[in-house]
């Protein structure tokens, strides 16, 4: 799981073009949206594309993202359970 979390952080940084950020800067338990990293709805859509590209997981409803993208840890857990690649 730790490895997945680290990889996921790298993929998030790349997908969202978070210049100057390193995986260590992201707390896997902190909120990605709102108070935490301060991401928004477009970032959520980018994360959906990222999950489909890297893990073969296709979300049909953007509101599902709200639950899944709560934190990197929650996201990693979801990916581990649902990944197709």
């Amino acid at each position, binding site marked *: 799981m730790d490895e997945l979390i680290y990889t996921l952080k790298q993929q998030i940084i790349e997908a969202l073009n978070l210049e100057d950020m390193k995986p260590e800067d992201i707390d896997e338990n902190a909120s990605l949206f709102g108070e935490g990293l301060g991401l928004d*709805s477009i970032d959520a859509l*980018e994360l959906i594309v990222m999950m489909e590209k890297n893990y073969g997981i296709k979300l049909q409803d953007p509101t599902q993202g709200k639950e899944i993208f709560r934190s990197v840890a929650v996201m990693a857990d979801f990916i581990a359970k649902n990944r197709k690649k």
Partner: protein
Amino acid sequence: MTGPILITGCGVISAIGNNKAETLDALLHNRSGVGELAYLKTEHKEFPVGEVKMNDEEMRKLLNISDDAITTRTALMGMIALDEALKEAEITSEMIPNIGFISGTTVGGMDMSEQFYLDYVNNDKHKEYIAVHDCGNCSEMTAEHFGKFAFITTLSTACSSAANAIILGANMLRCGEADIVVVGGSECITKFHLNGFNSLMILDTKPCRPFDATRAGLNLGEGAAYLVLETEESAKRRGVKAQAILSGYGNACDAFHQTASSPDGEGAFRAMKEALELAGIQKEAIDYINAHGTGTPNNDLSESQAVKRLFGEEVPPMSSTKPFTGHTTSASGSIEAVFCILALQHGFLPANLNWSQPMDDGIVPVHQIVKKELKHVLCNAFGFGGNDSSMLISRAGSDRHCWLDQQSPEQRPIYVLSAKQISVQQPLSEDWMTQPIEYQEPFNRSIDPSFKDYVSPIEARRMGKILKRAIATSKEAISASGLSSVDAIITGTGYGCIENTEIFLDALSKEGEQMLSPTYFMQSTHNTISSLVAIQTKNHGYNVTYAHKGISFDSALQDAVLQMRLGKIDSALVGGHDELTPTFYNILKKGGVMGRDDEMCGEAAVSVVLGSRPERKLCKLLGFTMLHQQSNASLKQNVSTFFTKINKKISEIDYVLTGISGNHESDMAYIEECRELFGDAKLLKYKHLFGESFTSSGMGIYVAAQCLKAGMIPTHLFVNPSDISNDKITRILVLNNSDLKDYSLTLLEK
């Protein structure tokens, strides 16, 4: 000018009909045109769409256009609607040279660009289509099918483009710039748009249900509509009757998010309020609102809040006609304005089809057609980036409480308060005056400052270079102007965020229609720049974007000057922003669009603040005019009229700053025209330093203003070294000539 603005003709084409009669019949019989995809070649068959029920060949046949002529679907639909509008207003081809044409579109000839993109990159096949990518090209194609209009320009504010074209047209009539203008918009469905909206996950796989609890997104549509706006005096003279009256209009910026509307609908609220105020009509008098009502959860909630804030408990009957046509994006403002005109003429409220359950906190729309006499209606059109507009349309012959009865606008002094640039010269500085950087390469990219002072890394995550440059120059210009904020943000851009457009097109062409990034799509709309500057500077004022070839900046400047003359605004941030990638440089060179002969192409970001208070000024703007498609004789006549109007003599110009760029044909034209028009005024140039780009004319204003402020002309700006002298500088005329047919003249004074 006095009297109301009349709508003396209109034409429309959409999924529910190829003309007004078919459209009316569909509206009266609740017949939707949304259905299974039939014309666009795409793998996304799962989305219902509102296509115009003709393929390109059928449209060409209808219009009598030969098979080998270069056209785009957007232009073809535009011609069909324009034809109907001109006929209804009884406009003959002899009248066209005295009439303006203003169109709105978002992606211009994208139907061709997405089809031929890889050819553009790799070979010479289809290179004759390269130029049609430009939004302005589609407008010209549409207009020139009927003749040579007096002027043509193009607005690109995403889904409110056509509404803003109507607003510009009305402002031009009010300023006495024309007696008749034809205004509206056109947009076809493209793979680019369908996949872009899909990447934003706002397309519904079922027929859209605006304001319904179960609404799950929009259906994409297409179409075109044009209105003939005319002064009462002109209509009387011609003996034509009004179809309706444009009583008021408003434009405001939500300044909230690039694709989402604010929860309280601030931009929409302001736009509607302004339309009522301009018309001088009480809110109780509004009989119907044609909602923007796209069917996305976000839009309908936000629009409901805006309407409730404005109308309180007494919300007028309201419906969205998007279930009939799908969301016709850029054209929706004029298409739905025509629906409103039909509703006023035939006394009915169009139904909000597919509605069954009220949404939380939302309005309850008119869900069945209602027969009712109507007098005043509001028509909303909102765009990405929060470019929100609203029009107030009244039944012909209704009591006139229209603002046009007021006196003509007075001439107010206008000053250039500040001007900042980022380009191939040292950014945000005037070092080019003393230490110009010289380039040998035909294409060079901007020298960027550190953007950290202007945008935080988290804010910058989705911003291409053009956006960061626009924000940096805008913030610097506003700060240097001494104003705390500006009343309007008006931007010109030829190709917008072309870097992101390229990435999206490239992915679409190579990887197909799956897993596309929403970021690249949303940045590809031309109005991203202007709306992002509004978001960054928290500005809810008037906000529009012009995208029309080499006069994009000039059109923006014209708009600012018009509104200052009308007293609508006291200050404006006028931007000219274009970036260029190596790939698009090669494509545009191949298409003969730029990079000809010895021309150096660059990138340009210019932000200019205009204001009416001279405390901290660079120079005074004595006059501005744009001239289109002139014969030598009419050019001379019009230039002379321009100088008479501003009470100056041509001999009072010290210097003419020209767009001489290394393009032989265009340079020759500059030299000959200047000799003919301005006699022995000394010629200057700036494009050898800053490069050619679509909005480089903005750099001309910047250069002239800085020279006037400094009281000196650097020797490297002189076209003829023999002209170099230390003569005093009082006035510089900035002359822009785009495509050898569009001119702008800006006279600046120390």
